[in-house]
């Protein structure tokens, strides 16, 4: 019935198998074998591989090559620059200053730095750079609007409403429509000057310019060599008072050299030499009196 030579396997585990199974059931050993040992092997492999400087360098080179290849794909190349919103002269200046060699990869163009460079130009209020599809570096520039002409010791300078320098000016007549200011530190007070000029009203046609005195207050220079000295504080109100006096009494139509408004509660008028002589004569006084200057 049964095969004669049946090989019956011993069901008992060998001593080795028994010990291995007990070892495997040891929690610490299990954790070691399943987590710590693989981690160690990975670390070891990496350590051995990157132990050699040559292999490290090769890997870095490989990475760099790949990076360069991707950066220089035609999709990322910039081949021209278009400047919008700038006068031709300014555009040429920007091009000359940036001196970007086209074609260049868009990864190599530092837009932020380029923008800072463009905005460093006096004539540029703000610049907006972007790489638009088609490989064009588009530069949108907003130029500074000149609002004043500032006569300095070195020459004429155009200023924008905030007092920032816009450009040199060789000829005053070229920008005759802009008001003129002079004096040290006049550029720091351009808004105030504009307020004064805006308040001029009927005197506007007579104003030749504003002079900053001692970097703290304004003189309004009118034609016929008349001067209105404005106080440090609240010059516009003082100027309006002068205008009101002129409107009501024709103040400036008189032979007056200067209207001194520096002390608000005590305006002082200075007559011309002829007018003063005439006045002395009319009052029967000596031609040269002790009237203060």
């Amino acid at each position: 019935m049964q095969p004669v030579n049946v090989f019956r396997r011993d069901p008992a585990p060998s001593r080795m198998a028994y010990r291995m199974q007990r070892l495997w059931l040891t929690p610490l050993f299990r954790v070691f074998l399943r987590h710590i040992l693989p981690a160690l092997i990975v670390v070891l492999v990496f350590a051995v591989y990157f132990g050699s400087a040559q292999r490290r360098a090769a890997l870095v080179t490989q990475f760099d090559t790949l990076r360069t290849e991707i950066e220089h794909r035609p999709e990322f190349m910039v081949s021209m620059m278009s400047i919008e919103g700038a006068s031709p002269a300014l555009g040429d200046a920007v091009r000359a200053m940036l001196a970007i060699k086209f074609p260049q990869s868009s990864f190599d163009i530092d837009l932020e730095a380029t923008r800072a460079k463009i905005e460093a130009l006096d004539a540029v209020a703000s610049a907006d750079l972007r790489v638009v599809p088609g490989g064009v570096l588009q530069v949108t520039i907003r130029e500074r609007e000149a609002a004043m002409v500032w006569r300095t010791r070195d020459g004429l300078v155009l200023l924008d409403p905030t007092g920032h320098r816009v450009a040199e000016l060789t000829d005053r007549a070229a920008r005759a429509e802009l008001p003129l200011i002079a004096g040290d530190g006049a550029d720091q007070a351009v808004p105030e000057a504009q307020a004064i000029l805006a308040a001029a009203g009927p005197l506007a046609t007579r104003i030749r310019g504003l002079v900053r005195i001692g970097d703290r207050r304004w003189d309004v220079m009118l034609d016929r060599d008349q001067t209105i000295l404005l106080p440090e504080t609240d010059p516009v109100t003082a100027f309006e008072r002068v205008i009101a006096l002129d409107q009501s009494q024709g103040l400036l139509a008189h032979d007056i050299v200067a209207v001194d408004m520096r002390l608000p509660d005590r305006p002082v008028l200075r007559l011309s030499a002829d007018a003063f002589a005439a006045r002395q004569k009319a009052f029967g006084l000596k031609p040269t009196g002790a009237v203060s200057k």
Partner: protein
Amino acid sequence: MTDLYQSQRAMRNMRRAAMQRGVIAILDIGTFKIACLVLRFDGPGRLGEQDSVGPMAGQSSFRVIGAATTRSRGVRFGEIDAMPETERAVRTAVQAAQKMANVRVDHVIACFAGARPRSYGLVGECQVQDRVVSEQDVARALSACDVPDIGEGREVLHAHPVNFALDYRTGLGDPRGQVGARLACDMHMLSVDAAAVQTLLLCINRCDLEVAGIASSAYVGGIASLVEDEQELGAACIDMGGGSTGLSVFIKKHMIYAESVRIGGDHVTSDISKGLQVPLSTAERIKTRHGGVHATGMDDREMIEIGGDSGDWDKDRRSVSRAELIGIMRPRVEEILEEVRAQLDAAGFDSLPSQQIVLTGGGSQIPGLDGLAAKILGQRVRLGRPLRVQGLPQAATGPAFSGAVGLCLFAAHPQDEWWDFDIPADRYPARSLKRAVKWFKDNW
């Protein structure tokens, strides 16, 4: 004696350490099978343990998480006969149980049936030192027991204090904290062959396991299969194993007598093998499938194919009636029961208030055994199955596993033994101190 005391104490400490680790293995080394259970202890159970014997006697605190049984090899009469074979069988069982439990076990509590257990009743008494009985007094009373000559090459396996008497008041379970002058104790001591126990311990150690306790299978079989009132009122548990039949008598929840009869189921098998001229494996199969002890008229007509692989057609085609098989089995079973009867008579079982007899072990599954046993042992015979413990697989709930289950209970809630009490201070060997003093005197 002190040596054994120390080694038993070491085992108790090992058991405590194993309980703290939470995993302990149970190893029942029998002649027919080796069973290994893995227990997991997770703190006191739901029912708690308010007193010494809790509502579940500690059973709710553990759970069986691994169980394995393997055919035993190299064991005869419950003693190790061929150590390498036994070692392999132990390894098989432990490995399978570990695999099921998925934990590694280092501590093992073992039980065995053989090694010729012999019971002694000991009496000791001492004066209570402080009027109130303390642990020290109990220890002194226990160590005052006069130990009989247990013979050359024998060791004490169990030493249970069974009864305490305090000034003419007897029957005390626990005298600690009571007031009295003279404390007397009765102790039951079980001695076994030292060589057999040592071989067993060596065998377990060779499997890389540490022994955290050792027990007699008659004792643990009784713990598992006697119900509480049987243990209280007096009962005998007859654990019919493969190689030997264990016998333990309980009263007042203590074992007072244990003995073993060195005949078991394997002898029945070998009788069948010889009588029918079949291999032992065939004889075992025939015994388990068709065995019995009561022949009826029906059994004459029930023919059993014996089979065989000798190649001789006539021999391989033999068949016997079941009555013939019963005729072979019955005398041997009767012999076992009569031996047990003789042991019980010698132990004075007749004088117990209740004489319940519980048959358990693999041999008790023979159909009709209870009827036969009632004729020989007395009317109060029942078949016992082990207690149900948590997580025990269905396959391990039969009477053959009463030893293993009893060992679980033994591990969870051991009864006090002599070595659980500290040795009294005045019994410490004074010689070592004297020698130290002498050394100082000699050298300075």
